[in-house]
């Protein structure tokens, strides 16, 4: 036990701390409704709000519980703030295509006034939502009495101006803009530009640039669709704007490469200005090489100096100034390399794992199978595997590190590769922008963990 405690602390921040359970959201039932499966998780810029989207097209927003003196441990406690239906299932009659309501991505806008704004997207349509509070209601009518009975219009002898009275806080979500009809293929990414007035949206073959206030027009900045679709060899898998430089964005491809483009140089960014690719090791080449090198997520560090990419087996950190290889590579679940054949057969090999940075860029987190998720400390190079499970969901319970046995002999507390549950996958995680609070989506449950300082 002592040994375990010694190896678990330290991932993230360098301080000696352990991760502990804070909350779990969502139903406990064994049989999970498809619509309840969480499809994206995102903290806002301050960490005050946390949004999730699900396959049923709903967005749920959680608000950080105010800390009070008598309950100081509530740092990682979030409660439902607003729930709304963002997208509905649709049918494209021209193409005979069903358009799922599943929320592919949520991105918050920097806060501009008392209300909060976010972009949510399904495969085709991006929507801008406003989430605002109302704590006053008007009272007093001229033509009705207190109980709503109509008054005789002939008896009106004086005019009454309504007055505003305090009421219970009401949170409203209203759709402010709908950005539709610009994507032929499925949207995989949206990203708000640092100029705070534009954002980009990427589908399999194209990237469009939008102005947040203009819905009827977008500019196509990248188009990799070949004239003949039979010559198609790669697709765009993710795209993101640089956090500070308004003219720079990157997009990753199914071939494991990343292109950095400069919107300053030209209106069309078909030609990249940087191309990041790690030379392939010929000795490890196999049938699956190309599939597992496909990048499922790309994220700039908060500093803007690095970016991180996730492929099937690893996470890589790239220095934007070095294109020929990543500066750091972390194995997420190397033990699966021998299982690729069965993972191909059950389609798991195509799972799109996302990855995220902590607030100070010193640690990174990404998901795995069996409800395991991994964290890597970039300074100490220590890594840890944790599990999001109901079993350890007692308040403030410390998370025990998990270990998958790779050798022949399984030690106590180790799990063998063959007993991993591949239906329990953690694809989406988010890290609070300032604190050590993380949100981990495990199928239909959202787990929130926080640090516990020793």
């Amino acid at each position, binding site marked *: 036990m002592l040994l375990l405690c010694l190896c678990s602390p330290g991932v993230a921040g360098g301080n000696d701390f352990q991760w502990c359970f804070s909350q779990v959201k969502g139903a406990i039932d064994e049989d999970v409704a498809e619509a309840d499966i969480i499809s994206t998780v995102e903290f806002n810029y301050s960490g005050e709000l946390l949004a999730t989207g699900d396959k049923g097209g709903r967005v749920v927003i959680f608000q950080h519980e105010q800390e009070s003196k008598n309950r100081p441990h509530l740092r990682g406690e979030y409660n439902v703030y607003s729930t709304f239906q963002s997208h509905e299932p649709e049918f494209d009659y021209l193409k005979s295509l069903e358009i799922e309501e599943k929320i592919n991505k949520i991105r918050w806008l920097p*806060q501009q006034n008392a209300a909060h704004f976010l972009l949510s997207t399904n495969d085709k349509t991006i929507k801008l939502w406003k989430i605002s509070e109302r704590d006053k209601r008007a009272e007093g009518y001229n033509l009705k009495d207190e109980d709503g009975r109509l008054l005789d219009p002939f008896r009106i002898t004086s005019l009454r101006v309504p007055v505003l009275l305090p009421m219970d806080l009401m949170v409203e979500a209203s759709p402010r803009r709908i950005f539709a009809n610009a994507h032929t293929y499925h949207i995989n990414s949206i990203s708000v530009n640092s100029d705070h007035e534009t954002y980009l949206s990427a589908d399999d073959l194209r990237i469009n640039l939008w102005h947040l206030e203009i819905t009827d027009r977008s500019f196509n900045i990248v188009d990799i669709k070949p004239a003949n679709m039979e010559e198609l060899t790669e697709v765009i898998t993710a795209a993101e704007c640089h956090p500070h430089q308004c003219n720079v964005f990157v997009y990753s491809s199914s071939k494991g490469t990343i292109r950095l483009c400069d919107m300053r140089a030209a209106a069309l960014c078909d030609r990249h200005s940087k191309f990041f690719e790690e030379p392939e090791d010929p000795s490890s080449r196999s049938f699956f090489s190309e599939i597992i090198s496909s990048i499922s997520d790309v994220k700039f560090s908060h500093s803007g100096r690095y970016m991180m990419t996730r492929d099937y087996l690893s996470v890589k950190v790239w220095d934007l100034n070095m294109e020929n290889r990543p500066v750091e590579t972390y194995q997420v679940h190397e033990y699966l390399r021998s299982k690729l054949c069965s993972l191909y057969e059950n389609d798991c090999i195509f799972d799109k794992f996302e990855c995220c940075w902590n607030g100070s860029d010193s640690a990174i987190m990404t998901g795995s199978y069996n409800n395991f998720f991994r964290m890597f400390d970039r300074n100490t190079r220590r890594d840890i595997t944790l599990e999001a499970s109901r079993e350890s969901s007692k308040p403030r319970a410390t998370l025990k590190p998990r270990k998958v046995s790779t050798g022949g002999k399984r030690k106590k507390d180790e799990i063998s590769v063959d007993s991993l549950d591949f239906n329990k996958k953690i694809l989406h995680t988010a890290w609070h922008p300032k604190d050590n609070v993380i949100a981990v989506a495990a199928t239909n449950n959202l787990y929130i963990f926080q640090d516990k300082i020793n």
Partner: protein
Amino acid sequence: EEKRAGPASTLYCADGDDSLYPIAVLIDELRNEDVQLRLNSIKKLSTIALALGVERTRTELLPFLTDTIYDEDEVLLALAEQLGNFTMLVGGPEYVHCLLPPLESLATVEETVVRDKAVESLRKISQEHSPVDLEVHFEPLVKRLASGDWFTSRTSACGLFSVCYPRVSSTVKAEIRQHFRTLCSDDTPMVRRAAASKLGEFAKVLELDYVKSDIISLFTALASDEQDSVRLLAVEACVSIATLLPQEDLETLVMPTLRQAAEDKSWRVRYMVADKFSELQKAVGPEITKNDLVPAFQNLLKDCEAEVRAAAANKVKGKRLNIMLPFIRLIQYTNQHVKSALASVIMGLSTILGKDNTIEHLLPLFLAQLKDECPEVRLNIISNLDCVNEVIGIRQLSQSLLPAIVELAEDAKWRVRLAIIEYMPLLAGQLGVEFFDEKLNTLCMAWLIDHVYAIREAATCNLMKLVEKFGAEWAQNTIVPKVLGMANDPNYLHRMTTLFCINALSEACGQEITTKQMLPVVLKMSNDQVANVRFNVAKSLQKIGPVLDNNALQTEVKPVLEKLASDQDMDVKYFAQEAISVLPLA
């Protein structure tokens, strides 16, 4: 349940006691669930205020409105606009400051149009503040907005400095300048953009010394901002700043920044320089234009980004043409987008160049562009023919013009065909009736049987314009016979086109032709076997009825319509009955 509906609010009973009723409805509808009714009430806010009187407007209505910022944008926009005209309704200039709180909260909403309207109204009512009130009430509001937590309020503040600056004491002036400086280096790009876009108007109200000491440094900083969207706004500010400064200071204070902008790394900034070129040229005067701007402009014409070249090409008009001509020729070899932009302005150059120069320098370009592979370039040349016509006469071009027109007329894209049809009346006017009959008439008739409806429709409308131009006699000899001939066409769509043409032409052709030539054809078509033709006969009769003489109407039209009114087809019956009820039939 409370949909007591808009009509109620427009009912106004003359009874003394009931006169409150419509106002009461208006007030209640300020909170109706139906946006349209709320909007209606807001638009009649002055009526409400008038009924309440100035005292209650100030103490009850305005406080209520101040907190009603949850509404739809269109309602808030109307509210912001109304409040700008509310001074008399709150008791005149003495009380105008009561309007500040609701406008202040509107100036912080996220919707740009609403914020802008609130700022516009604030600017308006600032003029109605006495100098004392301006310092006691208005200026503190500007400060509050300028130091607000959210960028929406800070962006709104940017538009208010220039209206209060000229009317406050020198201490307050110093504070305002300080606030503006702070906003120019705000953390968020939105605020810096708002500051950059108001830099020019703020500079105009500042004393010249402060323009030189304060504004120039802010301008320089914004023009080298890390955000492209901020830098490009600085280019705009450059125009107003340059007009304020004496000529001898321009070189040192403005030109370094402008030169830098013309060579900015971002094409969007260079685009802005190209786009604002005429204004910049005017602002810096002829000497600097010659030495600095013209070379910069030449570079923009050669820019590596097509958007920039196109913007520059658009501004070619009015430049020193002897310097520009080589570059204009160069453009021939660049991309479509740029060529088409140039084509839209190049014709305008002929009036500046005069006859001889146009023939020598521009004619070859026109001719080359008329043969361009891109239809848009050809169309842009043709659409501006009138400029050239004035200078050298269109005959010079007719040899090349005709093949270009014919080719566009038969273009595979129907939108191109549509565009050329729209220029036909213009061309016909300039080429004259002879040339038209000889070369273009056949084209115009061919469009009538185009397989795209939009083209047939436009062709019909074109015929009408031609008849207006060339007269009824010309119509009778050239087009009417052809149009009427189509009535026997085996394709019912073409037969219908005859009817559409008759609808369009009858008025221009006059009673004589309509009654004698067109009417018999229309009446004969009432026996058509296709119902669509028959009900269009009914529609046509209704349309041309007013042109016909009464005798024909009673003896010929009436029986036919009556017959159609008992047609088997429902639509035919409907339109026949409609015609019968509209026409003055005995």
